[in-house]
């Protein structure tokens, strides 16, 4: 059995630590932005991104079932769930604003990338336990996102073109998707190895 602080941390963040749940969103972002990068404009057929989105949704449902069947379920308190809904609503609203800024103005900073970096920095496990391995991964990945988002400031507005990426927003979204998949896989490994393997002997 792990110590009581570790057990408390795991139970409080049980569903948040199910890393593979983040993989479908990361894959979806990566595939859609990759498609946007190789498409011929003006785009006439958008069935492929719809297939990607539906596929990701199905994958998410399958992963959710896997976690429920293999690791069980810990329902968060109403207060934590409410905080999560508010957080998601604010992030969703900000994402729309950031997307609008990115496509309307030709700025050397990518706001979608910065928003993802910010959401990674303020993720729940980081707040509850600032020095754990989960938050370190989030910190490293958010730094990567920030650097990619502000890279045109140092490398020029068109530097993404030199590596075959049509626009900064596409490049940043591909990177965010890729990092989301990597983070999900690493968190899953952390989660599985954090659970106790030996039974406690107390009587």
């Amino acid at each position: 059995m792990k110590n009581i602080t570790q057990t408390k941390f795991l139970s409080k963040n049980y569903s948040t630590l199910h890393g593979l749940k983040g993989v479908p969103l990361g894959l979806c972002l990566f595939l859609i932005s990759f498609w946007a990068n190789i498409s011929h404009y003006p785009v006439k057929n958008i069935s492929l991104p719809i297939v990607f989105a539906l596929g990701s949704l199905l994958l998410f449902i399958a992963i959710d079932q896997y976690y429920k069947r293999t690791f069980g379920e810990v329902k968060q308190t109403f207060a934590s769930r409410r905080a999560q809904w508010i957080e998601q609503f604010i992030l969703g609203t900000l994402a729309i604003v950031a997307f609008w800024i990115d496509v309307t103005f030709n700025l050397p900073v990518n706001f979608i990338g910065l928003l993802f970096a910010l959401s990674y920095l303020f993720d729940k496990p980081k707040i509850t336990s600032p020095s754990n391995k989960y938050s370190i991964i989030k910190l490293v990945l958010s730094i990567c996102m920030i650097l990619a988002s502000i890279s045109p400031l140092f490398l020029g507005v068109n530097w993404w073109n030199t590596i075959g990426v049509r626009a900064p927003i596409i490049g940043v979204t591909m990177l965010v998707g890729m990092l989301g998949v990597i983070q999900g896989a690493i968190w899953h490994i952390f989660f599985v190895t954090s659970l106790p393997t030996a039974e406690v002997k107390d009587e």
Partner: protein
Amino acid sequence: MSNIFEEIAGLDKLIHGPARLAIMTILSTSQSADFLALQRLTGLTSGNLSAHLSKLAEGELIIYEKQFVDKKPKTQINITKKGQQVLEKHWLQLENFRANIQKLNPE
């Protein structure tokens, strides 16, 4: 010194063991947990976990409800108000106990 022994004797035996304390701590941080999650988080075998849950339920510290989801049994466990109070009291007693020990042994 006798006060410290009285404090130890005053600890609630029902939740003082590491397994039951872990179960109670998990339940106190959540709305509810199912049997499988408790097993994963504590590392207990299903037999031992069942035994501990029965003891805690007997003491009215938890309640559990058995349901069938997709024809499979699923046990949902919740901490009761009494359980929450007993756990808080237990942590307070442990904190006091630690403080008293430190007073006796400042180094």
